[in-house]
């Protein structure tokens, strides 16, 4: 299986994928952090319900250093989904799956190896997002007169690593959705567009029309995992619902990958 991981990583380290993806993550991290600091006010200025708007006081808390990072769950998740979907379905589009299966006939090893390689890639991506967010937050804290004493406390480290772990879990979840759809649909365009349409549009419409459905939707569940739980979903419920969806989609995709004839 290590051979499969090595081969997959070799494909993924091409500049057109790595540079573009890391540049997008860096740009998003910069955007999120900048927006938070640009809209920084005092606690009394903060309108109710405006979660993106932070005060100097709230940013001085232990989680202020990595606060902007915690807001990126959906975006990093969707980037992971795109990568997993395209890396899986392109094998069908390019017709390269037959080459891979001749060199590694165990389809389960091939699938697992691809998954681990892509997981390693998105862990690196998430880590880079964390580094950029925290570094920018530090850089901006001086201008914004934010006291960063608590940012280096043990509570801050515990909080960060919990948020980082949740973010990685959520990101892998989004990735698995992309990988499953990529294998089922055998087309990167279909897999990516259907996923984005669902997570960014249809789920929001469904939640608005039928509020009771919000507790069962996969995007909300994955989002709860990424952020450590929210108002709609607790963290535990997010984990359970996400796992159920991933087992369903992953199971169908695995079965198809294992049994489907590679005919073209």
């Amino acid at each position, binding site marked *: 299986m290590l051979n499969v991981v090595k081969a997959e990583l070799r494909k993924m380290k*091409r500049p057109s994928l790595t540079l573009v993806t890391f540049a997008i993550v860096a740009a998003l991290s910069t955007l999120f952090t900048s927006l938070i600091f640009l809209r920084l006010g005092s606690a009394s200025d903060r309108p109710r319900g405006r979660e993106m708007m932070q005060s100097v006081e709230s940013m001085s808390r232990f989680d202020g250093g990595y606060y902007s990072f915690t807001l990126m769950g959906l975006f990093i998740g969707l980037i992971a989904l795109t990568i997993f979907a395209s890396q899986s379905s392109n094998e069908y589009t390019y017709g390269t799956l037959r080459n891979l299966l001749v060199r590694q006939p165990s389809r389960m090893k091939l699938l697992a190896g691809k998954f681990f390689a892509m997981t390693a890639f998105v862990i690196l991506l998430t880590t880079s997002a964390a580094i950029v967010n925290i570094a920018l937050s530090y850089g901006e804290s001086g201008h914004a007169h934010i006291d960063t004493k608590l940012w280096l406390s043990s509570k801050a480290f515990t909080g960060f690593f919990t948020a980082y772990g949740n973010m990685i879990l959520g990101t892998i979840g989004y990735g698995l959705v992309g990988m499953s759809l990529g294998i089922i649909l055998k087309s990167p365009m279909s897999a990516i567009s259907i996923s984005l349409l669902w997570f960014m549009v249809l789920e929001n419409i469904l939640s608005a029309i039928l509020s009771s459905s919000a507790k069962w939707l996969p995007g909300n569940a994955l989002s709860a995992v990424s952020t450590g739980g929210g108002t709609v979903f607790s963290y535990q419920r997010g984990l359970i619902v996400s796992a159920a969806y991933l087992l369903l989609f992953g199971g169908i995709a695995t079965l198809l990958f294992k049994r489907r004839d*590679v005919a073209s």
Partner: protein
Amino acid sequence: MSQLAISVSDLTKIYGEQTALSHATFEVPLGSVCGFVGPNGSGKTTTIRMLLGLITPTGGSGTVLGEDIRSPEKYLSKVGAMIEGPAFYPMLSGRENLKVLADLGGFPHERVDLLLEKVGLGERGSSKFKTYSLGMKQRLGIAAALLPEPQLLILDEPTNGLDPNGIQEIRELIKELAENGTSVFVSSHILSELEMISEYLVMLRKGKVIFSGRTQDLLGNQKPITSAKPEYQVDLNKLVMIVKELGYQARVENGAIYIPVGAEIGAVLNRAAFEAGVTLSSISTQQPTLEETFFEMTEEN
């Protein structure tokens, strides 16, 4: 160890209501070059896919290098293959594409440059695959097939898109591999090429094996063909009638008539034509080529 590179018995593949391959039975001896021929849609690629474990047979059995085709992991490390044309990642260079496959199969990277040189891509190894011509893509496909230093090489249309020099190079490469003990199972539409290199032949028609055995046995058993050309093209139909009166059937092609009979007709035909006022500019008898035999055996009834 089995003395057969490939052996299949009653191998069958059915897609829905369509039978792609029906009860195919043939053997390919170890160390031989075996041509695999048949019209488009006759089941060649389906057979190759089953030999490589890409699709599951509906029925029958088979072995590759002595191992069951239902356990491809037992033999594929010793098999090189190029199927349905070369398929690689367009954004990667030829060299990186080969390294991906070398990583996957656990083969040393040193072989990559060696093989790029061997197939004439040494100077273009760093160019992206998407910039390659069809011939270059084909060469890269052959290099990929040679990565594992295979005991058995399965090639599906390896000369597709190659210029005459390229075709000759591939022919020489196959000969060289066979001399070194590699078994080669090769499908091609260029039958004159196959005739030159194949000791054995498997011929398919509509999903069924219609011949498998030594090429010499196939060609030796065919009736010789006598061709005759009239001096003037206007006499062609008259010549066909003369042949008919002599009790033979003739087909007309490229200004000549072809009669499926040996040299014994020569003198009789010449005399009959002379008496009818037709002068023959040439008359000759030949054993049919593989191409002629192929058309004879695979044409519709």
